[in-house]
């Protein structure tokens, strides 16, 4: 243990205090609400009825099963593809890495509604372009793929979420000490065996963290189950929350909160398991001082094979739905692609979007709020992770679990808690951009927390100790030694949070006010009024814009990776 002067403890206490304030108060409010029978601000009394209704019915078991199958299935799909692409770009000599990297970003930056509908237009048994191709061109008897199934749900959500695992696993791969692999090969292990015993086992913290994040997102999402599961009558847990909010007037937030406690339990158990599994942290220190030259694996002619595989995956999973969206953006209404369509091409949709004042206002708001939130989330995560990994402070694991809980609640539940909180607390953030920053930092710090934690584990503590012995203060050590070495993971988390502020809907819809609209609010406005073509144009513009930011971020982060070029 390293004992230090007051400066460090003060900084850490302030940051931890902020985390506790941001997370604990909404959490307590939500839990308090689950025991009340009326919305906040009205005369309500204590009741256990919400829990009775939420969990007293046996159908909940079927719902829970569907939810877990969906969430875990989609997580495995995302993880599989994302990691494969990450390994290709970070550890092999596969060509066209920049292209792969850029394409892996797409599914993330396009609004979820658009990709989901794009998949309907691709894989619907009746009108799906892919199915039509099989039936009309290849002579199949019936449409081979039915999107409206659990498999369809898993595919759509899975492929839409490859970006997070791609980023985080890439960061982890970049920080792997190849001498550990070399030791494996030298002692006679086959390539596969080395991969399993050395690479894989050492990356367990990151793998676990990524899977946890993916599963939690899967349990929480409602868009995909609504569009693809409902027609097949597959219901998931999030459907019940939706019901609670629509079936009753006024919407039953307390019931929704009671349902959310299921998520809370899953997320907390997940984090607790993760922390237990990674408590022997010394095992995972892959960045020591002994040298650290992430080696590129020469694949020889096989690299063209891997490239083709990557491009195939990206084409089917990412490019196709994007093409559908792009198509919809340049025609007045969606139609099957044909030669006649060329004469109907128009840029009107783009003109409408670009002529809208709110588009620019919301874009500026989004960029500002996004950058501030992402940076705050990264800083808080760095502080909490450092305390959890490097100190022996009592209760630090509990701190980590609590800091993770906002991730578990659906955006609308947290949004309402925050709405009420800042309407009643004498802190003048309601109606300003600050309440949005607070909301995003609260909800998304868990992501940067997990990526930071896993990254810190990879850092051998002696690197920091050497700095301290040499006379540097803790603060200087953190800035000059720790931060640069965890930068790849930190940047990945930072960018992910930034992109989420462009994507998340329930929070800004509730917390935006006059002049503080965020982009998703504008997007959803288009969606609700049936302006699907304009929506598609907006989606294309978003992809273009965010891709530029992402490439800039990558160039920034790569300055910090010590790779043999």
């Amino acid at each position, binding site marked *: 243990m390293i004992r230090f002067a007051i400066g460090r403890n003060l900084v850490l206490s302030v940051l931890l205090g902020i985390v506790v304030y941001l997370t604990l108060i909404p959490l307590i409010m939500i839990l308090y609400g689950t025991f009340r029978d009326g*919305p*906040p*601000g*009205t005369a309500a009394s204590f009741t256990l009825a919400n829990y009775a209704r939420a969990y007293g019915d046996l159908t909940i078991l079927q719902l829970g099963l569907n939810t877990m199958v969906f969430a875990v299935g989609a997580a495995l799909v995302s993880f599989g593809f994302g990691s494969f692409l990450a390994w290709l770009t970070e550890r092999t000599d596969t060509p066209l890495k920049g292209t792969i990297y850029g394409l892996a970003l797409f599914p993330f930056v396009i609004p979820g509604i658009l990709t989901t*509908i794009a998949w*309907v*237009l691709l894989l*619907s048994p*009746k*009108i799906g372009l892919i199915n039509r191709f099989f039936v009309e061109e290849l002579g199949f008897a019936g449409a081979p793929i039915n999107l409206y199934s659990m498999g369809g749900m898993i595919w759509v959500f899975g492929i839409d979420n490859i970006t997070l695992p791609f980023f985080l696993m890439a960061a982890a791969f970049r920080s792997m000490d190849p001498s550990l692999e070399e030791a494996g090969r030298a002692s006679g292990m086959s390539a596969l065996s080395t991969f399993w015993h050395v690479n894989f086992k050492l990356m367990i913290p990151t793998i676990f963290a990524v899977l946890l994040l993916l599963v939690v997102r899967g349990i929480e999402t409602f868009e995909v189950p*609504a*569009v693809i599961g*409902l*027609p097949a*009558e597959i219901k998931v847990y999030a459907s019940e929350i939706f*019901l609670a*909010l*629509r*079936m*009753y*007037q*006024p*919407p039953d937030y307390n019931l929704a909160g009671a349902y959310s406690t299921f998520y809370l339990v899953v997320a907390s158990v997940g984090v607790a398991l993760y922390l237990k599994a990674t408590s022997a942290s010394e095992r995972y220190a892959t960045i020591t001082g002994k040298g650290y030259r992430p080696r590129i694996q020469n694949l020889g002619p096989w690299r063209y094979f891997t490239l083709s595989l990557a491009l195939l995956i990206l084409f089917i999973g990412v490019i196709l739905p994007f093409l559908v969206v792009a198509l919809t953006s340049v025609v*007045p*209404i*969606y*139609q099957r692609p044909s030669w006649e369509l060329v004469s109907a091409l128009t840029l009107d949709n783009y003109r*409408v979007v670009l002529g*809208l*004042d*709110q588009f620019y206002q919301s874009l500026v708001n989004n960029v500002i709020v996004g950058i501030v939130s992402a940076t705050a989330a990264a800083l808080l995560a760095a502080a909490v992770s450092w305390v959890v990994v490097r100190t022996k402070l009592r209760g630090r694991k509990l701190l980590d679990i609590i800091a993770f809980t906002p991730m578990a609640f659906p955006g609308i539940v947290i949004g*309402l808690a925050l*709405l*009420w909180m800042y*309407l*009643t607390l004498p802190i003048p953030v*309601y*109606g300003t951009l600050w309440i949005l920053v607070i909301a995003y930092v609260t909800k998304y710090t868990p992501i940067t927390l997990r990526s930071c934690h896993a990254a810190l584990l990879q850092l051998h503590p002696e690197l920091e100790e050497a700095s301290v012995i040499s006379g540097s203060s803790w603060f200087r050590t953190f800035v000059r030694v720790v931060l640069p070495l965890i930068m790849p993971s930190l940047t990945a988390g930072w960018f992910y949070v930034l992109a989420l502020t462009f994507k998340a809907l329930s929070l800004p*819809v*509730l917390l*935006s*006010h*006059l*002049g503080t*609209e965020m982009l998703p*609010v*504008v997007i*959803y*406005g*288009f*969606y*609700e*009024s*049936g*302006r*699907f073509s304009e929506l598609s144009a907006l989606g294309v513009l978003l992809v273009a814009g965010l891709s530029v930011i992402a490439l800039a971020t990558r160039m920034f982060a790569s300055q910090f990776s010590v790779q043999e070029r």
Partner: protein
Amino acid sequence: MGLSSKLAKVLPLIGVVAVCFHSAARGDESLIAGAKKEGQLVWYTTTTQTDNKPILDGFVKKYPFIKAQSMRAGAPELVEKFLFERRAGKYIADVIRVLDFDVERFKRESLVARYQSPSADKFNPSMKDPQGYWTTDDYTIKVMGYNTKLVSERDAPKSWFDLLDPKWQGRAMFEILDYRLYAGWEQRLGVEQATKLAEGLARQKVVLRRGASQIAELLAAGEAPMAQAYVHHLEVLKAKGAPVEWIRTFDPLVALRGAVTISANAPHPNAARLFVDYYLSKEAQQIVRTWGKVPAHPEIEPFHKALQSKDLKIQFLDPKLTGQNYAQYAAMAKKVFYR
């Protein structure tokens, strides 16, 4: 009778009219004077940004001393935000535009003020709250649409009960938890018939989808031959060349009225009234017309010709009843549109 006696009859009339105009002008004047001092207007609305910009522009052109802003959100979020704000004692909104039964909820908590705008004098009584708390700006109708490439006009069903024909099983798209549709059935056909219809449709395994606009787009793309959609979505698609049409003969055609109301304790009450007057005036209703729904002003014809027909069996939902019986409607809707 002589000229003088005719004159004697007309003069008082002129006098009365002159007095009326004078007092109206005086009322208008005091509103404007008050609004000048307030200098601001905050409008909460469910209409889209592209739609409400010309309204705000027109209003500011007429009263350049008022800084007018709008906040747009979907109905559920807008209602909750307004309610939360008021319960916390924050007065921000002046004018709110939602649906009529949302305003009923506000009425129950005494959150809105009575205002019968002179602009709505000529409006049909069905476009106004009998108690004076809200006025409709426009309304849309829930209709049964079909894809003309998949269903001919001859084969299309002519009434709700035709949908119970086995040939339509699994071939019609509906919005999940569409309690308003059910409410319309019950308020028009009575509980017995409505229940029969609902239970019959439940057996027909209608395809459930989320998002009304999505349904219209998918209908146009041919995902299903029939769909329950909003008429203005379908008309817009039709105008762009989509192969969709809707059935005129269904009884009832459930209509949803938009409603504009003024917040009680509005921070800028004079500006609020001026705005409502403007919003319901012929000038603004011309703009509302372009949104594709049916404007409330009797002298403004709807944009889409098909909506001009007087034969449509339109059923407006009774907002009070809808609020009172919400739980029952939702329970029935769950049976058919959620299962």
